Structures are given as C-alpha cells and as structure tokens.
C-alpha cells in the first residue's frame, strides 16, 4: 500500500471512512469505537494521516496524503441502537486490515450493510418476558409475573407503533409509560398477586434507557465529555418523560394510596 493515492482516490477513501463512522454513530456505538474504527479503516486503505472529530449529532473526518488535506462533515440523526450494523462494520475493518478487502470491495460491502431488525412480535414477547422476569427477581409471585407480562406487552405495542410512525422519542416514552402503567391498574384494583405495586414498577423498567446511560458514562470515562454529557442528558430526559407518563396514569386512576 505504498503507491501514491491520486486526489480522486483520496476523496473516495474519505467518503468511505466517514460513511462508516456515520453509520457507527447513528446506530449507537460509543465514541471511542467510532473514532478508532474510522481511523483504522483509513490507515488500512493507505491514507497517511486521518483525524476524526465527533459532536453529538455530526461527525467530521480529515484525511491527509502528500500534504493534501480533505475535510468532510456528515449529519448523524439517530437510527436506533443496532449491534448488527456495528458488528458488520467491525468485521469489515478487520478484513481490510488483513488486506482481504481493497477499497472497492470494502465500499461495496459497506453499501450492503442494512439495519436488520428482529421480528417485532418476537421482540414484543421477549421484552414482556424480560420485565416479568424483573418482577420475579424482585420477589413477585406467579400472578404478578403474568400481569407484568401483559402490561409490558401492551406498552411495547404502543412503543413499536409510535416508533414506526417516527414520533419524537420523548413523546413515545411518555405515551408508552402511560399505557404500561394503565395496563397494570387492574392489579391494584383487584389485588392481584402478593404485591401489586411490583407489576407497575417492573413493567416500566423496559423504558430505562440502559444503552444510552452506559454509553454516556463510558464516553465520559474515556475522555469524550461532550458526547457523554449530551447522551446523559438525553437519557435523563427520556426517564423524565417516562415519569410524566407514569404520574399522569397514577393521577388519573387515583393510585397514590398504593404508592406510599
């Protein structure tokens, strides 16, 4: 890889690198990983120097060959967490480093990576079971387990429908929390199980923004304070929106006596 790159080669390489970085950031990779993979891809394909700079919703890449500089910027609207995409890009970078792929093969492969998702009904049932398992871990009996499953499934249905229609995530989380809490109300009124408040507490756990929180903290630990703070604030806002939904339902159904 010592041959001279022409200017159009360099331009194509810059585009390739920034596209991989953009996809990583959009699908919920932590900052260190985005910077690392983008740089490694560029260096493996023969660029002399490459610098990556991240901001919460955009990425910019500068490549240097023969003292000739190209800088390019891309917007990164959030596309939801998708580990499938991240794994595929990681494989692509490793294969490029081992010289299995050249620039054209890498570009062709990158275009083919799509955000594959699991069947939504499978996800719905499994998340329902997950929250039911939380209630079991917190000490609920079988009736609580079943009610949590039902409440979570109702909430998950709303969440998927709203996400599918591209509603704002904050609105989505608030609405989902409202529906989930409302669906757990029969547990209080009919005194189902050994501890009805566990139903509500466990069912809304599906709305804890776990991935953004962990990403935020690890970004800040590794020196990307800026992105870490913005992710942390977003995760807090999502939690606040969820609480608004819960409190709305509690007020509507007069549940405060059970909350003490």
């Amino acid at each position: 890889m010592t041959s001279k790159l022409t200017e159009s080669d360099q331009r194509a390489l810059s585009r390739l690198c920034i596209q991989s970085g953009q996809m990583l950031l959009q699908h919920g990779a932590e900052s260190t990983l985005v910077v690392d993979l983008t740089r490694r891809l560029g260096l493996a394909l023969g660029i002399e120097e490459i610098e990556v700079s991240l901001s919460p919703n955009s990425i910019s890449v500068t490549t240097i060959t023969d003292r000739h500089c190209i800088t390019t910027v891309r917007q990164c609207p959030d596309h939801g967490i998708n580990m499938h995409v991240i794994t595929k890009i990681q494989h692509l970078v490793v294969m490029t480093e081992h010289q299995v792929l050249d620039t054209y093969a890498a570009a062709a492969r990158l275009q083919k990576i799509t955000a594959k998702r699991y069947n939504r009904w499978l996800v719905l049932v499994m998340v329902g079971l997950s929250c039911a398992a939380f209630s079991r871990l917190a000490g609920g009996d079988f009736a609580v387990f079943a009610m949590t499953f039902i409440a979570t499934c109702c909430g998950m249905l709303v969440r998927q429908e709203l996400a599918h229609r591209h509603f704002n995530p904050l609105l989505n989380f608030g609405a989902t929390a409202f529906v989930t809490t409302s669906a757990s109300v029969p547990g209080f009124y009919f005194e189902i199980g050994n501890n009805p408040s566990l139903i509500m507490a466990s069912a809304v756990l599906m709305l804890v923004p776990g991935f953004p929180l962990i990403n935020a903290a690890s970004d800040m630990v590794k020196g990307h304070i800026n992105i870490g703070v913005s992710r942390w604030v977003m995760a807090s806002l999502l939690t606040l929106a969820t609480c608004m939904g819960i409190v709305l339902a509690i007020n509507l159904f007069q549940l405060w006596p059970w909350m003490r």
Partner: protein
Amino acid sequence: MNLLLTIIHHAFFAMIPAVGFGLLFNVPLKALKYCAAGGAIGVVCRYLLLEQGVSIELATLLATSVVGFLGVYWSQRFLAHPKVFTVAAVIPMLPGVFAFRSMIALVQMNQLGYSPELLANLVDNLLKAVFIVGGLAIGLALPGLLFYRRRSVI
C-alpha cells in the same frame, strides 16, 4: 442446597432479560447466548457479593468487571466489540427502580410542594442510581482502562 436453588433461580431469571434486551438492541443471533451467559454470571456474582454484605455500588462494579473481562474474551473469539455482548448482559443490574423513584419524587414535589421527605427521597434515590450506573460503566470499561490502554481489543 437452598443457596444453590437461589443461584439457579437468579441465573435463570437474569438470562431472560439479557436475551430480551439483546433482541431490542439487535444483537446478532450468534452472540445472544453469550449475552444470556453474561447476564446470569453478572447477576449471580452481584447476588453473592450482596449476601456477603458488600454495598450495592461496589458489588455492581465487581460483578460488571467480571462480565467486562468475559466480554473481551468473547469479543476476541468472535470479532465483535465487547459492548455487543456486555451491555445486554448488564441490563438486569440497571438501577431502574431507583431512577424512577427519584423522578417520581421530583414530580410529586412539583405537585404537592416542598417537603423534607420528598427531597430526601429524590436525593437518596438519584445518588444511588448515578453511582450504580457509574459502577456499571467503569466495570465494563475496566479491561480497556487496565490492559488495552493504547491498543484496541480487536
């Protein structure tokens, strides 16, 4: 015997959320069973530490660092970033209940006005949640901080 049963119970009910949230994060099919294993190991480690009287923050840190090192081992075998395995695995340990209690106290303070009990509720639960999340993130980042300082895991 009783302890063994409790451990199996915790492990089983930690595997379900690890897989469920793995699906939500679109973890590749081949990695899902490692998410489940990591979830079970993490929750059981934390349970055992809590039984020994360790505080919940420290127990979380130690349990997630075990998961973090396992994640590095798996990531080198399967060429995927450790977070692919570890984040879904630590989901059962997230302090969701603490976070919600503190936020509900915040909203209640808005409705009912200030009271020392509500403020105490807010601060106590918020601090617990923040420290546990910090413990989770540092535990997962520990292999990188200790051994992979100037090179990538894969």
